[in-house]
């Protein structure tokens, strides 16, 4: 039996008086490909922030790899949503990937000797970045300026940055926003391949795309409704108004089948 990577239990969260998440409960098992869908402002990004330990729930518990989210960060790879990217920023693909380096490597890089030459990466660091870029098919672009790449290529580099620390769980917030349909498909094919070695948790607004790849779909609109495609069971997890979420979800899935 595979162990639980994410455990969300009766989580409530509000921004001031505005309730963002209500009684959210679900779990994600090891190597499961999970997608979170729902309308804008429905609480998807809030959920991700709770899972990363950037926010604390008002009540309930969030556990990642059986740890508090803040303590689990070094085992979690994160690909943030990019709305506002400065394409002129002078930075290479290698620099971006190295930002995701594991803590031990960071400690090595801040030793006194390294402090004298902070812009020089060690051979171990470059080797690590190269092998990570190989996983996403971007190794030939290691010295290129990030702003010169296409949206899809940039997103692959962001995934490489998240993979650099060899995480057990990869969280992606809208990884294919502003990417053309072909690029979207390529990113999801890549995630499917990565899913062999790690658990994938992806936030998306596009049910049509994620339903092709995800084994579990969580619909969030303040409340959560979990649809496990693995055994085709439907179950509302929000106690207060689960039926509403279930109806919305069913409508979306029906629309998809048509």
């Amino acid at each position, binding site marked *: 039996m595979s162990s639980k990577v994410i455990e969300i239990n009766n989580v409530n969260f509000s921004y001031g008086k505005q309730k963002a998440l209500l009684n959210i409960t679900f779990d994600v098992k090891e190597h499961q490909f999970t997608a979170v869908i729902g309308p804008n402002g429905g609480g998807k990004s809030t959920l991700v922030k709770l899972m*990363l330990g950037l926010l604390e729930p008002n009540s309930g518990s969030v556990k990642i790899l059986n740890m508090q989210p803040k303590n689990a960060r070094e085992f979690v790879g*994160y690909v943030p949503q990019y709305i506002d990217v400065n394409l002129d920023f002078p930075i290479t693909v290698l620099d971006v990937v190295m930002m995701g380096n594991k*803590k031990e490597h960071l400690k090595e890089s*801040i030793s006194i000797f390294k402090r004298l030459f902070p812009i020089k990466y060690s051979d171990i660091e470059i080797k690590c970045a190269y092998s990570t870029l190989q996983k996403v098919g971007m190794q030939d672009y290691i010295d290129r300026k990030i702003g010169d790449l296409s949206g899809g290529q940039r997103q692959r580099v962001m995934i490489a940055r998240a993979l650099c620390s060899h995480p057990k769980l990869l969280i992606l917030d809208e990884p294919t926003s502003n990417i053309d349909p072909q690029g979207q498909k390529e990113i999801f094919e890549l995630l499917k391949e990565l899913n062999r070695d790690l658990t994938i948790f992806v936030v998306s607004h596009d049910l049509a795309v994620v339903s092709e790849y995800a084994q579990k779909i969580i619909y969030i609109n303040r409340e959560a409704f979990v649809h496990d495609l693995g055994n085709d069971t439907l179950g509302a997890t929000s106690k207060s108004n689960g039926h509403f979420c279930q109806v919305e979800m069913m409508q979306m899935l029906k629309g998809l089948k048509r």
Partner: protein
Amino acid sequence: MIEALSYDFVQNALIAGVLVSISIGIIGALVVVNRMVFLAGGIAHSSYGGIGLAIYFGIPMALSTSLFAVASALLISWLSIYHKNRIDSFIGLIWAVGMAIGIVLVDLSPGYHGDLMSYLFGSIMAVSHSDIWIMTILLITILLFVHIFYREILAISYDSEYASLRGIKSHLFYTLILVLSALSVVVAIKVVGLILVIAMMTIPTFIAEKLSKSLYMMMILSALFAFVFTMLGLILSYIFDLTSGATIILTSAFGMGVYGVISYIKSRI
């Protein structure tokens, strides 16, 4: 022109030009990539309050302006971290209130207060030996800061939220960049004045950003361009007897125009 170099005040002006242009070039690169130009503008203008304090209480100008600018930087940093949505309104407020404090304190001070225009538009020929020392210490501090913490600065400048997740103290580095830009503004007041300093921070940086593949290269090029524009501006202001600060800025703007024309022609070939 050559005989002018034998004068003590001309030598001081040239040394100050070199020191300040390198400091401003490096800090300008960080200000631009972190999108802090408006914030730095707020700090620069509000530091007039420090000038007013110095005149009213009779305290050293460098000390009073530095303290005032650093206090503004800390306040702006706190506001931009915790009240991000309304930061433009707060900056506008700090910008104007700082200047107003300065003007009112100068009005309340008895006697002659010297040429106040020199603080607004610079007076590089009035740079003293102690000013040179302050500029040197600041440049060394900036060089050490950006060199030692290069990886952290790069990470927070590119993606501060991700940097925080990787254990980097984003808010601390953000505040340090603002404090160093405040101190750079204070020393640049002598060279170009507090109104023109933002142009000196942004014009060389704009060209450098286009030509660089890394932040390190951008800082080096930005310092180099700032140095070249400052020296050319000083020479032209001496030859044509013009205000040095304004001439430096116009030289920089001309350099930017030349760069724009060259890159346009290159893109058409």
